[in-house]
């Protein structure tokens, strides 16, 4: 499971795409997403996916995007089977199945190239309440801490004789209880300490908090944003007027 989740988790990268303004990346992903909805034939969908694969390669994240695709292929297969059963139309079924993969990939590219810091900035741009943004920030910030906690608790419980890998499914799920309870208790204690530390550093003091980081769109960001819009327009135009429709 761990290697599959890699398809949505940010890791530091230094490609041109990683360094883009998060707004440009968001716009690009949204437009790619919409393009997948506009594609009306398997050929068009293949073009869209090929573009996204090329982009992932340029952003040096092709391996992880491939993982995302492998992961979604499972669901995509399910969609294909259901569609074949109900529509009895092979082409439409393939289209829907690939569309699902394409949709996931378009969002995945955004999330694996955008740091939590940038995500926070994007959330602020959408004027989400500060508490919501901060809850997101701390949730992501404490993922590695909680993972370490979990490993420590598992080791501690195993050393006291807890056997995690034994028994049937019900037994295995029940075995998780001695891991989960200390983890939850830990987290509650931690959140109390966090609340104190937030107060001590004036959380919520100013009606309009400021930010150390300033995102100013550079020429390259605007250039990429324009290119995304142009490509989107081109794709939409050719899907409807150039490439002949292959099914009613």
């Amino acid at each position, binding site marked *: 499971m761990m290697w599959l989740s890699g398809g949505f988790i940010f890791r530091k990268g230094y490609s041109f795409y990683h360094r883009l303004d998060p707004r440009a990346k968001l716009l690009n992903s949204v437009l790619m997403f919409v393009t997948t909805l506009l594609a009306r034939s398997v050929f068009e969908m293949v073009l869209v996916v090929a573009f996204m694969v090329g982009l992932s390669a340029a952003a040096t994240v092709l391996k992880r995007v491939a993982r995302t695709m492998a992961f979604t292929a499972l669901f995509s297969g399910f969609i294909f089977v259901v569609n074949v059963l109900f529509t009895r139309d092979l082409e439409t079924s393939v289209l829907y199945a690939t569309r699902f993969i394409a949709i996931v990939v378009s969002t995945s590219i955004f999330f694996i190239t955008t740091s939590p810091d940038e995500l926070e900035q994007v959330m602020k741009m959408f004027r989400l309440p500060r508490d919501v943004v*901060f809850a997101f920030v701390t949730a992501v*910030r404490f993922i590695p801490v909680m993972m370490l906690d979990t490993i420590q608790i598992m080791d501690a419980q195993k050393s006291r004789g807890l056997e995690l890998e034994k028994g049937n499914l019900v037994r295995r799920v029940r075995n998780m209880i001695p891991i989960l309870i200390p983890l939850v208790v830990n987290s509650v204690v931690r959140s109390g*300490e966090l609340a104190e530390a937030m107060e001590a550093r*004036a959380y919520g003091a100013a009606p309009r*908090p400021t930010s150390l980081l300033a995102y100013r769109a550079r020429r390259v960001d605007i250039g990429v944003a324009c290119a995304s819009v142009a490509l989107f327009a081109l794709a939409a135009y050719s899907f409807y007027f150039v490439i002949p429709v292959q099914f009613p």
Partner: protein
Amino acid sequence: MGDILGIERLNFRYPESPKNAVSDFELSIPEGEIAVLAGPSGCGKSTLLRTVNGLIPHMYGGEYSGDVIVAGSSVKGSSMRDLAQTVGFLFQNPENQIFMFTVERDIAFGLENLGVPREEMRARVDEALRLLRIGDLAQRAPHELSDGQKQRVALAGVLAMRPKLVILDEPTSLLDPKTASELVALVARLREELGTTFVVVEHRLDLLVGVADRLVVMDGGRKVLEGAPRDVLFGDDAEAHGVAIPAVTRVQKALTESKGGRAVAGRLLTPSELASAVEGRQG
């Protein structure tokens, strides 16, 4: 210089608790001092510290009487916003006071909350990075830091708000001996450079006796001893209240008992004092 902290007949009892966590507490600390607060676990140290930075009574309910005056104003009557800029609080576990994804953004956290303009914030973050000599960590994520580094980052975030008084709650409890003594040296240097007053809760007195001006010992919610570290540690009561007497002091006491009056003279606290006393006798 006047007192930065004045505690006047303070009593505090948590809701549902049968007895006071802090009783009849009196304390004055002049500006620029390093004061050490010691005492057994559960003696009310943490509660006392929380009355100084305003978490009590602003965040916790309970029965509160007396007054705590920080930099001339009463904690009861000040907002958390004002207190956050006067009193810095370094909590025991640095992990739980680092909120952001990069070191420099975390140092800016308090300033962002106060609405400090970006240019000034940048300058103050850079100053804090320089003071703690962690400029090379500015872009690191919290999980890429060692415990000692986390402690420094958390302290930088506190200092960026330019508090007059900084409280350190058992700052060395999670650090190895070398990092712990580095932290103590850092506190001494910051006091020299910034004139900041420090109140440090600490069990490892060996580390701090060299730099502390005042030692306060608490027991059962009350102040039981107070004075210059030398006076308190050579007094008769310190051991009875569970204070960890520094090794040098114990050595000297043992020598005095076994050799009568022929031991090294003076009241020694630190290894360097012992060294020069021994050299003096030989020379």
